[in-house]
């Protein structure tokens, strides 16, 4: 079995943002030379999400609004004090909880060297506590 790994980085520009990374994942699949297998996309963070949805601006806005509505910025959270291991305030509980809703990974089948996704499926790296420098991993396993 062949394994191909690519680490990607990006600087996000907004506090909450859905960033279309579909082309990056497609390109990694092509670069890997793997014909049949699985591609995993994995975030390296706890205040981001990876999700798949239809790539439309209105839906992107609806997803952002849903996250804000379900998890309020102004709620009472335990994660709300000084974090000595960082040397800064840990006051981003809403970002962590929104991340918990979205999950940190997506995966697709790879067949004949092509990622098998539906025509409307768009892969989003979702920033939930930006702007900040972020990383995610694309890993393709197969033959």
């Amino acid at each position, binding site marked *: 079995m062949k394994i191909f790994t690519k680490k990607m980085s990006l*600087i996000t*520009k907004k506090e909450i943002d859905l960033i279309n990374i579909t082309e990056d994942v497609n390109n990694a699949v092509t670069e890997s030379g793997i014909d049949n297998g699985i591609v995993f996309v994995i975030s390296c963070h706890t205040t981001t999400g990876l999700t798949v949805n239809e790539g439309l601006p209105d839906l992107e806005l609806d997803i952002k609004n849903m996250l804000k509505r379900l998890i309020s910025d102004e709620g009472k959270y335990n994660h709300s*004090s000084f974090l000595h291991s960082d*040397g*800064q*305030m840990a006051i981003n509980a809403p970002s962590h909880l929104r991340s918990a809703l979205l999950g940190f990974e997506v995966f697709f089948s790879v067949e004949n060297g092509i990622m098998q996704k539906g025509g409307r499926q768009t892969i989003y790296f979702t920033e939930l506590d930006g702007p900040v420098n972020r990383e995610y991993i694309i890993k393709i396993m197969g033959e």
Partner: protein
Amino acid sequence: MIDMHTNPIMIDEVVKKEKDLLDNINKILSFYFPPQPLEVILLEMDAAGIEKSVLLPLDCTTAYGCSVVSNEIVIDLVEKNERFFGFASVDPRTEDALSRLEKYIDYYGLKGLKLDPSLQLFSHDEKEILYPLYQYCMEKNIPVMIHCGLNWSMLATAEYTNPLMLEETIHNFPDLKIIIPHFGWPWINETLMLALKYKNVYVDSSIIYSGTPGQVYKQVFEKQIGINVIESSLMYKMLFGSNYPRTDMRRTVRGLESIGFNPDFKERFYKENALFLLNNKEV
């Protein structure tokens, strides 16, 4: 909006400039999260609605043998980016403190002096080393920010950070513009008293102790002091400060907006009072 209290640390481009700087920041200031590209600070300012930020260095030569960060780094950041102002910091215990301060203000155009007795380890009683610096700042009409209150550095102690210790200096230099940062927390009432009483005392809003900025400001500004007192008596005295990166700018601004200060006060608090101090102009 002008942020009067930004610490230019944990920035990739900055920590790479000096070999031991990141270790010194870890040790002296107790910051441990990964440095971020400079671009992230600018984007964070955008996201928070902050137009310009004042960068604060700290010269700890006598206490710890280094600066975190140096005046030269601040000058470099300011010269390369129009969104930054810079203060200077000199260690009062060093023989050339005054001449260096003169150089940073007169030649490089830095806008004020930052001192921190909790990390530079001086007492406000040491007039022989402090007063020449204050005299110069008063003559040049530039502000001095003197750390008061809680310092989150694990090396810092609170021994010399009660703002009441500044009162003799305030008396002796009635035209020296003194900024008490962090609203002096936990000495809120003492800070308020000084700012109410003395025309040359200013305060910045960068209070950090527990909870979100919104919760902190509600407790301190609404419940402890009272919005009416702040709006009526600190209209020309209060400065916006984030204390980034101890906390993020976005939530800090959102927290202040949740208080509901009146628009006239916000105009002074968020920007005009800072411009008055930074532009070296009398009212």
